[in-house]
């Protein structure tokens, strides 16, 4: 007898439909799986057999062949355990032959329990079938894409009872994530002093402009960066789904409710490999940090300590807003619309410019060179962060995150009206239309270009930042000379060895 079920497997952040065919026929007892299963998928044989026996059903002592179609698509992970088990039960007559078309994914335990798998959201989106059986923990997230087709299942026995005895399906269970794991953004009011950095944070949040903080250790660079995410608007419904999809595919815990609703904050360690940062790796192309941080903040602390090749791999995603990870099995496109905040010390010992700096000039020059010019060219804002003086530390608090977020939201609304997510996304004609230069502003830019202080890419980015500055001020239609000058003033420049100490 033959049973056919729908399921899905994960490639990058996309679910791909898979059809599971189970054939039970006379012959020598045996169990084989064909159709490009990877190692964890082949091990399904042992898990499925144990789970069926533990659930009180009987294991058919016949020849069992499982085909995973399409045959050319590599299947990864244990998510196909559940459809294979259901197929065996149906093909051996232990489930009714006349059932609505079933889609399912989930990993089986030897006791017949059904465990969650990474990527529930994209998988549920890709699975066909009138009913989609999903592990209870993944059910809430799956509902956001598969709606009322979702049926939460806890054990294999639940499924048999529901289909054979007509018992109700179990209720979905919130994921085990406690609220502490959800991004917690501390308040900007905690930061005393640092006037330049505060303005830069606000501009970065309002226009989606990448930011580089340079300063000695303990000056508050990390503290500032962590507060940026609290200034960003909440995710729109589409963004929330996109972020949740990536987080689900990366195996990150989803918050209660199954959807990520606040902008993510990701801070990879500087030892991160290229695959960890931009995605990839062997087998299925896992989303990297630049993708899990999409629609949010990617914080690169100790920028100078990252491997230069890893940093340069960020250049394309920053430009295009997506990562293309090419693997032998195919190319996977993953979202990467991040706001980069980077922090670095001015020199290896961190004291750059102070008397205590112990770095020989050559070491300082080497350190400054670690961040390549092309990457710097993509960072729109650069500020020096120094330890605030005592008067500022004891002085009055600045604007709170809520106050700044309100101004940021206003600018973002203006951007939406221009048809982009944020001003940093303005290009070509849209830029000419929404950010026309006053004649004097054009002269200033021309001089900066001639003097070599600005590249072609830099020109566009300066205009975007100038647009944000004007939006934050009075939202007038044109870019005034002061807007353009301030944008040039904020722009990242190579650290000059020697003169900065």
């Amino acid at each position, binding site marked *: 007898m033959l049973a056919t079920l729908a399921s899905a497997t994960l490639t990058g952040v996309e679910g791909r439909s898979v059809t599971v065919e189970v054939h039970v026929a006379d012959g020598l007892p045996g169990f084989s799986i064909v159709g490009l299963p990877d190692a964890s998928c082949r091990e399904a044989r042992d898990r499925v057999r144990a789970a069926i026996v533990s659930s009180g059903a009987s294991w058919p002592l016949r020849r069992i062949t499982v085909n995973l179609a399409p045959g050319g698509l590599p299947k990864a992970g244990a998510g196909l355990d559940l459809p294979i088990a259901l197929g065996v039960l149906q093909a051996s007559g232990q489930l009714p032959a006349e059932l609505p078309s079933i889609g399912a994914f989930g990993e089986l335990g030897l006791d017949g329990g059904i465990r969650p798998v990474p990527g529930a959201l994209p998988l549920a989106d890709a699975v066909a079938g009138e009913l989609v059986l999903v592990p209870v923990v993944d059910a809430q997230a799956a509902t956001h894409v598969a709606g009322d087709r979702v049926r939460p299942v806890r054990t294999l026995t639940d499924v048999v009872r529901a289909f054979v005895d007509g018992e109700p399906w179990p209720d979905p269970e919130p994921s085990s994530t406690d609220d502490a794991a959800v991004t917690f953004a501390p308040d900007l009011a905690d930061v005393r*002093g*640092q*006037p*330049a*950095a*505060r*303005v830069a944070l606000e501009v970065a949040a309002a226009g989606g402009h990448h930011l580089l903080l*340079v*300063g000695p250790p303990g000056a508050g660079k990390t503290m500032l960066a962590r507060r940026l995410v609290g200034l960003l608007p909440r995710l729109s419904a589409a963004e929330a789904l996109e972020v949740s999809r990536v987080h689900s595919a990366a195996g990150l815990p989803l918050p209660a409710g199954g959807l990520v609703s606040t902008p993510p904050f990701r801070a990879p360690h500087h030892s991160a490999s290229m695959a960890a940062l931009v995605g990839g790796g062997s087998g299925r192309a896992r989303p990297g940090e630049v993708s899990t941080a999409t629609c949010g903040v990617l914080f690169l602390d100790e920028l100078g300590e990252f491997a230069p090749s890893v940093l340069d791999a960020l250049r394309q995603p920053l430009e295009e807003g997506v990562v293309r990870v090419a693997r032998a099995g195919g190319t996977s496109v993953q979202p990467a619309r991040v706001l980069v905040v980077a922090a670095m010390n*001015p020199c290896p010992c961190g004291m*750059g*410019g*102070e*008397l*205590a*700096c112990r770095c*020989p*000039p050559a070491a300082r*020059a080497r350190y*400054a060179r670690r961040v390549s010019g092309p990457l710097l060219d993509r960072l729109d804002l*650069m*500020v*020096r*962060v*120094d330890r*605030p*003086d005592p008067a*500022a530390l004891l002085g009055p608090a600045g604007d709170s995150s809520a106050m700044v977020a309100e101004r940021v939201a206003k600018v973002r609304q203006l951007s939406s009206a221009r048809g982009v997510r944020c001003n940093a996304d303005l290009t070509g004609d849209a830029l000419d239309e929404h950010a026309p230069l006053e004649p004097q502003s054009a002269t*200033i830019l021309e*001089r*900066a270009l001639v*003097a070599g202080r600005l590249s072609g890419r830099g020109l566009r980015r300066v205009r975007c930042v100038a647009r944000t*500055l004007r939006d934050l001020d009075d939202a007038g239609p044109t870019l005034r000379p*002061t807007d353009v*000058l*301030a944008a*040039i*003033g*904020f722009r*990242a*420049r*190579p*650290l*000059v060895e*020697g*003169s*900065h*100490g």
Partner: protein
Amino acid sequence: MADWTRTTAVTALAQLPGIGPVRLDQLLQAGDPVDLVGALCAGSPPPPGLGRIDEAGSWSAILASVDPGALAARLADLEITVTTAGEAAHPDRLAHDIDPSPVLFRRGRPVPTGSPAVAIVGTRRCSAIGREVARELGHGLAAAGVVVVSGLALGVDGAAHAGALAAEGAPPVAFVGGGPDVVYPRRHSELWHRLVAEGTVASEAPPGAAPARWRFPARNRLIAAVADVVVVVESRSAGGSLLTVDEAIRRDRPVMAVPGSIRNPAAAGTNGLLADGCAPVLGVDDVLVALGLTSIVGVGLGGAEVDVPSHLRAVFDAVDDGPTSVDEVTVRSGRPVLDVVTSLAELVASGHVVDDGVRVRRA
């Protein structure tokens, strides 16, 4: 083949292996260099009194392979002037020094003889503050018409030269270890060429000579010999600049030192000098007074009054000669951050202020 001239003959002799300033002096004392080169080419032994020279055997072959015409063309091409003791263009102080310098290869202007000269020396591995002080002293002295003499090394030397060039006052002089055409250290390539164009780069080493270790102490003696006062900005406790100080003391030149923090290892040598009774430098004025010049108002550390557009004045006044962050400028000027960033961008564009990536200082 063209004939040997005095210039090419002296250069060829200086390029011989085993020949340093002392033996070159002896060779030139022994007779006319053109005759000497002819004799050596013909296989005659070197004149007596030079001591044992292992490499002397190869001299005749080396000299025979030199084309005097090509050598003259190369000197002309590099715009290298060769002066020997006794010529008017040869600095008097070097010709009559206790360790006389027989030959000088120089690019750029002649070494000025009439104006007062101050050597600014110090460690290559100086602190940021040391670098700034060297720069400001170089700037202030050059602006006051004093020739700044140093060695174009990394650290204090280079900063002093850069400051002197920026002042557009008296053109600075550099004595270097290798040939005047051998740029060393490479990092100072730009500064080197600016000195060639606007000041002087001079050496005892002939064109093409590598900056060998043994040449640097000899070079230090030239710096001490030419200067009226030697100022040490920062020196480690056993630093090479203390060799310059020894040479200055041998010649009775006043030595002055810039005090540093007792926690700063780069200032251990200078603080030691001060403890030994050497005069401290607290500003350009101290050096000018030591030179017997009356101090010039406005040429203290900090530079002269600069003309800036009135709307940028408040921000410009908040910028130091050393690295200043936007935060500092904001607090001092009391202006909003965006205003400060805008004004600084304008000041950078107009050249009043330079930025190093994250901080600014006065140009």
